[in-house]
């Protein structure tokens, strides 16, 4: 059984009572430990698909199952708790909270767990170590470079040891060198730590780092 199973998934938007279909009848399996890149032009629905897997949006039809749990059938309250446990999200624009230090940003998902302060510190420092930023733990986002901010974002995504990491254009706001560092880091998370990664990108060089590349265009998903 695949870690992520997407079956007959459809999503439409309504604009001024006119239905706009983003995609229709999409099917996809993502195996545990896989690193899948999802490519496609702007507006093709890549991020929408990612949001549906994370349970941030509801499909028009079809279902998404992650690690045996049907995400599309969950209620909002259950979804929040489920997301905290199973999803690590990496954003294009890092989305760190500016009033918190790097350490505190990474600690955020752990506040939703029953871990003690000491245990949280250990987990945060481990995650910061994985992304190579233990020396920047007390820095605020404004004191970090874009690449460092994204590494903190990745540390935040992995700190609670989620089932899957969803990365939405993780290198979209970075220069070539920083982008390369981030991709190397994601690859390492996949290779060394066995993390399953679904990455949305329209950068072909980024997609090359994945095991498999899928294309979403005009509502159709192809290899």
């Amino acid at each position, binding site marked *: 059984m695949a870690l992520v199973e997407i079956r007959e998934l459809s999503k439409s938007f309504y604009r001024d009572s006119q239905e706009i279909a983003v995609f229709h009848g999409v099917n996809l399996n993502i195996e545990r430990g896989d690193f899948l890149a999802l490519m496609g032009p702007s507006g093709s629905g890549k991020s929408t698909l990612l949001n549906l897997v994370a349970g941030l949006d509801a499909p028009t039809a079809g279902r998404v199952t992650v690690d045996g749990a049907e995400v599309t059938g969950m209620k909002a309250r259950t979804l929040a708790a489920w997301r905290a446990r199973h999803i690590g999200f990496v954003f294009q624009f890092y989305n760190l909270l500016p009033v918190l230090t790097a350490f505190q940003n990474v600690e955020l998902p752990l*506040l939703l767990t029953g871990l003690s302060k000491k245990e949280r510190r250990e987990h945060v420092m481990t995650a910061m170590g994985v992304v190579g930023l233990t020396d920047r733990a007390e820095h605020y986002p404004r004191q970090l470079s874009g690449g460092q901010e994204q590494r903190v974002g990745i540390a935040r995504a992995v700190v609670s040891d989620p089932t899957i990491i969803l990365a939405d254009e993780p290198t979209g706001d970075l220069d070539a060198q920083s982008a390369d560092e981030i991709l190397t880091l994601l690859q390492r998370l996949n290779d060394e730590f066995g993390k399953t990664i679904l990455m949305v990108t329209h950068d072909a060089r980024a997609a090359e780092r994945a095991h498999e590349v899928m294309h979403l265009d005009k509502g159709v998903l192809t290899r």
Partner: protein
Amino acid sequence: MKFARLVWANLWRRKGRTVLTLLSVAVAMFLFATLRSVLTTLAASEQVGSESRLVTRSAIGITFPLPEAYAGRLAATDGVSAVSWANWFGGIYINSQNFFAQFAVDADTYFPMYPEVRMPPEQLAAFMQERTAVVAGKGLMERFGWQLGQTITLQGTIFPGDWDFTIRAVYVPDNPSFGDENFFFHYDYLLERTGRFVTPGWFILRLGDPSQAAAVSARIDEQFKNSRAPTKTETERAFQAGFVTMWGNVAFLVRAIGTAVFFAILLVAANTMMMAARERVHEVAVMKTLGFGDGLLSALVLVEAVLITGVGGLLGIAGARLLFGATRALSSILPGFAVAWSTVAFGIAIAIGLGLASGAVPAWQAARLSVVQALRRVA
């Protein structure tokens, strides 16, 4: 507690705005505490008078004196066990800003009538032996830094001239509403200095049986009904309440101002929270993505709002209590004026309610925020 750092960090995101809002709430709650204390002091002063004492005054008005000869006739009235009398003096100490109440009293009978006014017996004895002696309240002594034995000069207004008094006794009232800033001197001194051109302002009567108050009052007023100075007799409590009802419209005004202040500050606090929430739409979306539930996010917003109004409220109310406790700024006008603990508790409850009300809309908005739309808006 693990979310405390997050709330704290958000509170100080815009230091200037948080401090200004906090101060607005503090000033408003200071005003609230002051206004409410005026009301509670007025209400308490209604209770200061005794049901076992009657006050007989001129039926025309409190400023019209009564003949001294009434004392004997009142004492002889059935149901009256003792009689005393007093006059309002109305002098100025140094300047008119230093207001305090001064009474010329019949020393032999006045203090036995008021067992709730306590002073050392030797001081009372010293007062009794000297015609220009004065009994001053403890609060008055502290207010002006007076000492026992000190000579005080008042400038008469109703009774012209400079009047010298020597402080021989200091009293402390059992009931704060009696006031500890009163100044009592001998009626005989007033009589002597004015060339006997003075008569009692009002009489105080002790009843043998308090349950007979209405009957005795009616009997007295009937007795003087057709005289040249008809009387109005009532219990001391009713007499005090009469003064309080003179404040009736002020009480309404105080309540109206208090309500206006409350709503003004509610709008200020709500505006602050709305602005703070609007700035953080994107962050709320990110936190929802991380797994923060709607209820938790709403609670965090509400806690933040309650902290601002709660701390502001505490500052204002505690400030009022400490300030009025230390300076006794209004106690000469309103004897016993103080910010009571009940006002402190009520004020804090209002401040918390204010926080919940001002945070309700932003909390609701945070809960119903669509993550996808919020993130897309920024992207």
